[in-house]
């Protein structure tokens, strides 16, 4: 009678893993949360010298992708569409295998992982896994306003 119990236990475990994975996919997480790998990179900034492109005035999506990754392409479409329609937003996609420096520095475990940069290039958070438009816009809403606005007030 051990067989059926084992099967049910394995399927239950897999279901829990799947539900947690699904709930975390693409959700924006601000950096600096306790215990996260992003802690080390709390005050990290990325600039043109890291990315090869000028960061956006409002926000930059730095998408780390790999060729062995199906969700990277749908995420690429979503983020490039957001960058095209939202002013001051730039999307740059990098090959994680060629940018292991960034992968190590930010403790990236999966692809796609998208680092979200604020107006001054500071890393404000990240999204891991397939990202949809609503999640990308929610990440934008979490970015601080450009400094120009603050000065004008």
């Amino acid at each position, binding site marked *: 009678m051990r067989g059926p119990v084992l099967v049910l236990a394995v399927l239950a475990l*897999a279901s829990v*893993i799947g539900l947690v*994975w699904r709930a975390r996919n693409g959700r924006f997480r601000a950096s600096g949360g306790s215990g996260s790998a992003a802690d080390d990179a709390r005050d990290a900034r990325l600039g043109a*010298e890291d*990315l090869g492109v000028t960061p956006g005035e409002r926000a930059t999506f730095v998408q780390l992708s790999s060729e062995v990754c*199906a969700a990277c392409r749908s995420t690429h479409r979503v983020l490039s569409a957001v960058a095209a329609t939202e002013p001051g937003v730039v999307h740059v996609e990098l*090959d994680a*295998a*060629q940018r292991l420096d960034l992968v190590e520095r930010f403790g990236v475990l999966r692809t796609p992982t998208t680092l979200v940069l604020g107006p001054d290039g500071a890393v404000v958070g990240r999204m891991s896994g397939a990202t949809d438009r609503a999640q990308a816009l929610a990440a934008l809403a979490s970015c601080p306003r450009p400094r120009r606005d603050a000065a004008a007030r």
Partner: protein
Amino acid sequence: MTSSRPTPSVPTAPAPAPGGIDPRGPRVGAALTAVLLVVVLLLGGGLPATLLLAVVAAGFATGAARGVGGTWQAWVFAHVVRPRLVPPTELEDPRPPRFAQLVGLVITGLGVLLALLGVAAAVPVAAALALVAAFLNAAFGLCLGCELYLLGARLRART
């Protein structure tokens, strides 16, 4: 650490994908594999369970060698399932599922190998691990082998 921090500043997106496959194919295939793995667990141990796990491993071996479209599960999908479905809205890169087939081959192949060497518990352990992966792929579309890819790349870079 093999080199210093600074790297070329030219952004490089991954290479474009070769011809796409219907993403539902690998998921149906994973469901078929999962059913076989459930049977392996229900058989418990002994020769029948080892033989069936070897059949599953052989399926993974064809998938790793010829791509996921070359497996018997893909044949079933193409001839039985797909004719009843609408055409896919989007095609998928064939390399991630192929990489996952290789991961499946390593797990189930080790199980068979250890069983032949006398480690009877290796069959249910390998079948349970592979069942978790196959079930996640079939039910949630989560490809564990694909998620592991970046970890593998990080380890390779360290050594």
